[in-house]
């Protein structure tokens, strides 16, 4: 039997589009812009297309919320090396902060959400501070505990509305505002983060993940870098939570629910870790699936977990990395 191996070579057009030559012809520009514009247009069109199916219009918002949390998870896990098992912590904190601002301090929606995002992110960063100077599983452990803990505290002390939650939050002006606030911010965060991680600071983040001693040797304080990274991730997560609270016009302990932790993680693993777009694609697959399976109740979580485990064990690169490879490279079998 002849021995063959698979050879992967970059497509010529991929190499040409890496530099300034990208603007040399329409074809090159299309190669670069095509997938990006396609994604943007599809997401922007969704509310109009789904005019036909009103039920699914609500789902778009939920998908975008999960996608945002997924981006924050992907950023922390694959660029900074911190595994955050508690996306629900960010959403819960963001949701409660916006409820406090909106209901107790009666700020308008469009002021309450940004305030809640920033305050919530600061709060999350401060409470996560003790585990940031440490390597290993501590961050995962602490983020796993916080959502459960905050649920207990709120239940036990009966603060912030107790088990009933805070009701009477303002809603958005109309459904289209509702959709486009989250869609546009999702796109801004997505492309912003993609840009952000290729800046110098992004290099430092990856350095912290891969070899923290070398980062230290360069005179950079790892803890400060991590604090910054957690703040950014919390910013995204808290925004998602604040938006969700206004969407439901209610902030309660179900904002700390397990779904917000596990679905984004599953989305990132299925969509492809380390690409940031993967989180969005994964959530666009998973969340509609979860809507279809609504009748099964908690069995949905079992399905995600099984999907998640299967992907992580057998196809750990995820869909996006796979598609990216096919797009950039061609493969052929060569004799050894």
């Amino acid at each position, binding site marked *: 039997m002849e021995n063959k191996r698979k050879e992967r070579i970059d497509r010529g057009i991929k190499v040409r589009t890496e530099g300034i030559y990208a603007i040399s012809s329409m074809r090159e520009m299309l190669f670069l812009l095509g997938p990006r514009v396609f994604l943007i247009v599809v997401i922007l069109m969704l509310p109009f297309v789904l005019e036909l199916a009103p039920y699914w219009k609500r789902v778009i918002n939920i998908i975008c919320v999960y996608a945002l949390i997924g981006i924050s998870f992907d950023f922390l896990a694959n660029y900074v090396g911190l595994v955050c098992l508690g996306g629900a912590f960010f959403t819960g904190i963001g949701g409660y902060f916006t409820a406090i601002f909106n209901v107790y301090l009666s700020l308008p929606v469009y002021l309450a959400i940004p305030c809640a995002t920033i305050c919530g992110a600061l709060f999350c960063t401060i409470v996560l501070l003790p585990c940031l100077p440490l390597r290993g*599983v501590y961050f995962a452990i602490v983020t796993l*505990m916080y959502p459960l803990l905050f649920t207990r505290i709120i239940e036990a002390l009966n603060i912030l509305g107790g088990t009933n939650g805070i009701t009477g939050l303002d809603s958005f002006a109309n459904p289209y505002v509702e959709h486009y606030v989250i869609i546009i911010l999702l796109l801004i965060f997505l492309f912003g983060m993609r840009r952000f991680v290729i800046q110098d600071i992004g290099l430092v983040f990856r350095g912290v993940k891969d070899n923290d001693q070398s980062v230290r040797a360069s005179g950079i304080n790892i803890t400060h870098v991590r604090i910054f990274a957690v703040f950014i991730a919390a910013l995204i997560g808290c925004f998602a939570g604040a938006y969700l609270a206004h969407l439901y016009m209610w902030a309660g302990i179900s904002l700390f629910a397990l779904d917000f932790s596990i679905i984004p993680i599953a989305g990132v693993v299925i969509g492809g870790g380390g690409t940031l777009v993967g989180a969005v694609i994964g959530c666009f697959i998973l969340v509609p699936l979860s809507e279809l399976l609504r009748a099964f109740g908690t069995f949905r979580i079992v399905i995600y977990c099984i999907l998640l*485990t299967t992907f992580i064990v057998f196809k750990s690169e995820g869909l996006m990395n796979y598609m990216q490879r096919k797009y950039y490279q061609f493969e052929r079998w060569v004799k050894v």
Partner: protein
Amino acid sequence: MDILIYGIINSIILALFSLGFTLVYSISRVPNFAHGALYITGGYLAWIFTNKIAALPYPLDVVFAVILTAVIGSLIYQFIIIRIRGMEISEIIATYAIGLAILEGLRWGGLRGMTFTLPAFLPGSVDLFGVSVDYQRLIIVGVGILIFFLLYVFTHFTKIGLALRGIAQDERASMMLGINSDMTALVSLAIGSALAGFAAILILPLGNIVVEAGYNVLIFAIAVCVIGGLGSIGGTILASFIIGFAQILTEAFISTHYQMVVALLAIIITLLIKPSGIFGKQKELEERV
């Protein structure tokens, strides 16, 4: 007096919760986030054996349930964790996902409400220094101490136990001496799961089998392990006494609701002051960045 007695009982319970987790972590370096799920699985299997397959006497049910839990744990290792070992992010996510799948699957399968209870080994209670303690709690203390003793004997005087300790201390050197790293990890996961299952059978008669207990067990196990130093069995026992008494004291003087808060505060204080835990001295360099 009742603070002392219930403090000891609570501490032993916490130590039983966390023993399996710390054993797995110290030997295979896999943070087993499915620990709480294995705990509930053990209890649920024992319930199935007693209520659905009534022919067997209860002690045999217990033995079967514990063995089956151990088998489940080793299957998880053999088919899933072995493929992603060493990749920390994947390990955490995969074990967490497995744990969630088991717990939520059981909840979906009907593990809800008050109907699921395990029988106590001995019903009734006794007066101990003027405090009424039921026999089950005394059995927990007795069996708990027996388990610690057996575990000590096992890890210090049997060949497998020594191999496990060797891997935990220096994996490369042990592999050079012909100890199979995967095999010991498999054994450690089996023992860890068996300990979780047995702890469930001991402790669950005090209440109902509910899914939430799985999450609580995981959290308390992790809290105890972080404070005692991840992977140190002596530290785990000491830390469970610290948290156990702290919890009983808050319960007596403040309110029952704060049990979880105590655990988390203890973790945060430990991480701030001595991140590697009370007894985690040798790994201090590895864990602090």
